[in-house]
């Protein structure tokens, strides 16, 4: 394959990574934005989503699509409820104190991860995609006869991966509508602005926090359900998404949702592209180090604006 | 003896976004004298002393300490030169004992000499009347005692310039009297800049009064002069005709 088609393939892979990442990172960012806490267990909610997707699809059986649709509904809701429970019984009791929340969610991380190990086991298990046609992609070349459309060997994507990209976009639009066009969104934004004042105006801040924490976790789980037909479900799979989501949220500006989307696209695309051309470890080293430096020198994020 | 300028601020200005907290404020402190800085809430008094002490970076302006430009020095360096600062909102080490609070304040100068250090801490606690509470956890003290402790910490620093931001706020009348006596006893050696709302304290202590209003110096002079000043009356004293 030439460089051009190769780059296009890498970009498509990057778009798939971005799609998953944007959902996971949105969840983290939403929680940070509204509740001002960092949820270290976020990656485990992702992992739970993937594992539950496997559980649901194997329980339902039949055509892969049945299991997949079941998982799409059950996993995010269940994970959201678990997260709301964590909020109720843990975070609320430490008063959302920033430091203690981090320590507590580290504890939650191990509890979820290790319980999964006990109940689900150490195996990585695949989930069948509901559909998986390989679609060849055309490439344009400027040859002797002007533009010509060719079909390079190996330049293709599966219908499922395309679906992931569109599904993530659809969820994003729905989320955006929820936040900007509904009463729920208004209440969430009011709480984000000033929780004390919101409380004084009758907003049930405690409930809003539980919902937001549940919604954040649910988004991660949804991302995981989408990814699990591509990547297998494993009890340790939460680490990478957590780190990447952190990176995205930091680059995008802590708690800024538009920043998160842009950063997820940036990171996901470059991750996809870089890992096709370079050693993934080196890429990760550079990315991790640079993100730390961003936090040191531009704590408001690369895309955020400094507060005055 | 001609008054010696220990501390001088020239053209100090702080603008927060659009809010002019301080605009071209000039002020100088005479050696060993007590200067009171008064003005309504939000006038910019705390902002001004914050810029002098180095806690707040000014938008522009200069601060001189004994003739030296200290505008570029960070807060801790200014304190090391011989300033002390008490916060408007009580700021102590709540988890440490009263003794340790004062010991930390005295420790910058005396930590190398255990005996002198210990003696100093006890002397200060004795003077301020907290000696019998030396072992109590500072955070458990009553509000009034915490304020007194913070003043004690300032004393323990043996400052040349002592800046106090509303030290008598929330103190009882007897505590206020004790405070006045304390300030009188250290004035002379120590140059004092006092932000104060209680006119009784200002009348009793201030050699010089500067009035700040909406970030600008409105008037400056002795207490009697200030008291007679119509503009000040209108802006600030108007509603408090006692004193």
């Amino acid at each position, binding site marked *: 394959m030439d460089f051009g088609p190769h780059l296009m393939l890498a970009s498509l892979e990057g778009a798939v990574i971005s799609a998953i990442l944007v959902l996971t990172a949105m969840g983290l960012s939403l929680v940070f934005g509204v509740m001002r806490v960092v949820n270290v267990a976020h990656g485990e909610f992702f992992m739970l989503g993937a594992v539950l997707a496997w559980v649901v699809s194997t329980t339902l059986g039949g055509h892969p699509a049945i299991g997949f649709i079941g998982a799409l509904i059950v996993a995010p809701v269940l994970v959201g409820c678990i997260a709301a429970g964590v909020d109720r019984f843990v975070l609320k009791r430490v008063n959302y104190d920033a430091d203690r929340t981090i320590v507590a969610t*580290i504890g939650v991380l191990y509890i979820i991860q*290790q319980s999964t190990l006990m109940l689900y086991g150490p195996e990585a298990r695949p989930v069948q995609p509901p559909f998986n046609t390989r679609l060849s992609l055309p490439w344009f070349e400027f040859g002797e006869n002007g533009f010509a459309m060719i079909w390079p060997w190996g330049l293709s994507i599966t219908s499922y991966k395309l679906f992931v990209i569109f599904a993530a976009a659809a969820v994003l639009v729905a989320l955006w509508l929820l936040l900007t066009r509904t009463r729920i969104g208004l209440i969430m934004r009011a709480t984000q602005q000033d929780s004390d004042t919101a409380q004084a105006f009758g907003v049930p801040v405690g409930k809003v926090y539980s919902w937001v924490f549940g919604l954040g976790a649910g988004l991660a789980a949804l991302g995981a359900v989408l990814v699990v037909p591509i990547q297998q479900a494993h009890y340790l799979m939460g680490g990478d998404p957590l780190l990447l989501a952190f990176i995205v949220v930091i680059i995008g500006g802590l708690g800024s949702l538009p920043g998160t989307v842009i950063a997820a696209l940036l990171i996901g695309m470059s991750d996809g592209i870089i890992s096709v051309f370079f050693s993934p470890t080196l890429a990760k080293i550079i990315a991790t180090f640079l993100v730390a430096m961003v936090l040191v020198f531009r704590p408001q994020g690369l895309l955020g604006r400094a507060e005055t | 003896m001609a008054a010696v300028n220990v501390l001088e601020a020239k053209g100090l200005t702080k603008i927060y976004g659009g809010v002019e907290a301080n605009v071209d404020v000039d002020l100088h402190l005479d050696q060993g004298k007590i200067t009171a800085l008064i003005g309504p809430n939000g006038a910019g008094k705390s902002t001004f002393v914050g810029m002098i002490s180095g806690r707040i970076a000014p938008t522009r302006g200069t601060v001189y300490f004994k003739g030296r430009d200290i505008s570029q020095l960070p*807060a*801790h360096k200014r304190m090391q030169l011989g300033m002390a600062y008490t916060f408007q909102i009580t700021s102590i080490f*709540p988890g440490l004992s009263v003794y340790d609070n004062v010991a930390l304040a005295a420790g910058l100068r005396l930590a190398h000499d255990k005996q002198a250090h210990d003696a100093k801490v006890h002397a200060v606690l004795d003077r301020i009347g907290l000696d019998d509470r030396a072992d109590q956890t500072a955070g458990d003290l009553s509000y009034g005692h915490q304020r007194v402790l913070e003043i004690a910490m300032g004393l323990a620093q043996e400052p040349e310039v002592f800046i106090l931001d509303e030290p008598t706020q929330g103190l009882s009348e007897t505590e206020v009297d004790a405070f006045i006596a304390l300030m009188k006893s250290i004035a002379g050696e120590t140059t004092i800049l006092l932000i104060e709302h209680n006119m009784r304290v200002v009348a009793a202590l201030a050699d010089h009064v500067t009035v700040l209003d909406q970030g600008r110096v409105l008037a400056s002079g002795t207490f009697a002069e200030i008291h007679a000043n119509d503009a000040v009356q209108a802006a600030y004293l108007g509603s408090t005709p006692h004193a």
Partner: protein
Amino acid sequence: MMASRKPLALHLGILALLLVLFFVLPAYHVGAFSRIMVLAIYAMGYNLLFGYTGLLSLGHAMFFAAGMYGFGLTTNLTGFSVIPAFASAMLAAGLLALGVGYLALRTAGVAFMIVTLMFAQTVYLIILYFGTYTRGDEGFVVQQAQRQLAGIDLTTETARYFTAFILFSVCFLAMAKLVQMPFGKRLIAIRENEERARMLGYDVANLKLRAMVISGVFSGVAGASYALLFGYVGASFAGVQYSIFPLLWVLLGGAGTTIGPLIGVIFMFYLIDISSGWTNAYMLVAGIVLVLLTLFAPQGIVGTLRKRGVAWLP
């Protein structure tokens, strides 16, 4: 004066107890305690930064690893003997802490936690990247021939216990002294009220950096001791889990206390040891303990005892 004698007596008593344990414990537990003492050095280093200075790092494994690899790689690649290898391990950890501290200390709170986490992750990935030398996740063995000091073979159970004991004692007493000194008091002042400390004239940034470097060197000593005494160097010791452990130990034992780190390590070690007997998900215990601690006993064991009447506990 009585008040300051009691802690000293307690510290010496603990050391005497550790000495006696060697003669009374069964072999398995003697081995366990060698490990516990080494890990307690790590916990003490962490405690200086977290417990005393109030800075919560989520990346201390990088300093432990700097010590471990600093020791392991110098012995393996340059053939240094124990003492110079140990010194280079301490140097590596100290320099890393200096660099990381210089950068990370510009941030505070949550940002400091994430920055330290990211730096540690970078170090971990670097170890994996240079797999040719470090052998990555698999790790490498420090040969018996290189674990000899003044004619003593440090690989025997007895030599190992006593080396760990000596290293622990030195660190333990040094740390107890350090936090009693004006320097230690100033760190506590920063933890209690940073702005106040600054306005008393203390150079807070410099104090924090020094705390970070000392903390890093202690962690490095622990890492080097681990490589020396147990002969294994591996990337897992640089992973996130080994950054979480010292936090867990210190929280459990009691942050900002001299004996808390040791107590925390002992408890956690045996909790995990026992639970790994009946499940491979032994980190479940760590998670549950972390959550319970934050919810019900943020002061840890020693902190809670202190509150319940044993106020003199150091």
